[in-house]
């Protein structure tokens, strides 16, 4: 039986963070980009909870994670509404092709 310690959680969270950034940079579909943002937020959540558990900092970390989950939901709602609005206007949510504003 392997003992699961702080390092394991931190490795998971940094991998999630990197994958989230990778998704934001490479994905063309706006919904996929938003999923990347969710990954970044959740990686921070894992950090908060792991630090709070293994660092004996009390329950503050868990509370922060709860706040972040709520905010992530709010942000997803707003972002998806915006994507839906784009789709209604141009019938396309490929972020590379929505480029009427540029230098």
């Amino acid at each position, binding site marked *: 039986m392997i003992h699961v310690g702080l390092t394991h959680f931190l490795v998971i969270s940094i991998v999630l963070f990197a994958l989230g950034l990778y998704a934001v940079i490479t994905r063309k579909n706006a919904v996929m*980009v938003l999923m990347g943002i969710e990954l970044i937020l959740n990686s921070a959540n894992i950090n908060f909870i792991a630090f709070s558990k293994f*660092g004996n900092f009390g329950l*503050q970390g868990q509370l*922060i994670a709860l706040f972040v989950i709520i905010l992530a939901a709010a942000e997803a709602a707003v972002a998806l509404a*915006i994507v839906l609005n*784009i789709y209604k*206007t*141009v019938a396309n949510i490929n*972020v590379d092709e929505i480029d009427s504003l540029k230098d």
Partner: protein
Amino acid sequence: MNTEQLLSDIGFIKPEIAIAITLVVIVVVDLIMGKNKKALPYISIAGLVITGLLVIQQFGTSVSVFKTSPSTSLLVIDNFGLYFKIIILLASLFIIFFSMASNEIKSTYARHGEYYTLIFGMILGMFLLSSAVDFILIYLSIELLSLSSYVLAGFVKNSLRNSEASLKYVIYGGVSSGVMLFGISLIYGLTGSTNLYEINSLIQLQNFPVVTLLIAGLFVIVGFGFKISAVPFHFWTPDVYEGAPLPITAYLSVASKAAGFAVLIRFIKITFVDSIDEHGFWQLISVVDWRSIIILLSILTMTLGNFSALWQDNLKRMLAYSSIAHAGYMLLGLAVLSNEGITAIMLYFLIYLFMNLGAFFVVMLIANKIGSEDIDDYKGLGRSIPYLGVSLGIFLVSLIGLPPTAGFIAKIYLFIALVDAKMITLAVIALLNTVVSLYYYVRVLRNLYLVQTEEKRPAIKMSLLNSIILFLLVAPLIIFGIYFTPIVNFAKSSLSIFGF
């Protein structure tokens, strides 16, 4: 925390409560009045005036409220935060008037209830941001500010330009606030605290791994850098500023930036400063050299802002790059790391409020009439719109920083702070940048007055209200350009941050 303490603390957040009440009143009135939305802007103005009185009443107090433990708290009320709240309120007041005059916003008459509600959501976020000293509250208020502004940037739903602006804003904003949250989680892991004061004392006492602290600090600065549109976190700025409805663009460029600067200055000063010597220079905790990082950011920001503005044909986009450049100048004041530098930033912001809002207001009034923000469409317009043209001239000359306008005073105080700190090279770089900026500002004026066109240019009739607003924006620039002692004293007296 006991109930009595909580109740007495509530007395210190009266301005925030007034904002929240106005928000609710707007929603309720919108529901009751049905299709008649005429009352909403006036309710907003009344709410802002009341909040302003409550903020002025608080000047001079210096307390920490909503304690999470005997030594830590969520908010502090001090003159520094109140000064930025005044700037935010002034900007909001002007924006309400802009919205009443803007054709873009008028076209969404049926949804005016949402519009003013979201504006007050932004104000509440900015108010909390400028007095927060706990990372969690900072993150929450940044999100409150951002979520409202994402929607406002795309408020005219059937315009592709608007929708695209809000999509870009939400993607960049989401990523940067996510990165910032990751940085906060690292700082929490290092120190076990989210309170800036507590983090400061822990960094002074213990030796934390330098690399982790550097990465965490940089990640947090990403979030703030996004709000103040510092390079390299500026990519959203030109697109969002060009796409969003003009009142919102003006609002983002002044109020949202003011809140970003307030929280950035507070973060640097509380978290990383060890002590302040008798000349007002801050001694940083010698773990990471934050000064070099800020200097690098500010040089990049002003240089890229100014040089990119050179080849912009859309005036809104040009002003977006110019606002990036101005953020760069103001970051210089922070890089000085002294009380004098912060005074210079605060003075700069008060003046920047009038000149930037003014420039956007004139662009909006002209766009209302000719339906374009293209600099080429301004050719020969100067003679048919004498008042607007002259005012735009004053705003642009002030943005360059030439006497006798107030923009000159703002720049001169910044340069004095730099020279006093013996940062001559930086002052020279800023000066050269100002020279570059001359070209693109003057190009607009040249098109207005010196270029002759065959076609007849339309005259723009201004309503009495718009003339008064325009006058209120021009007059301070001229008055403060000549008689600037009161605002300098006001900025100096608002320097105190709780705990220092």
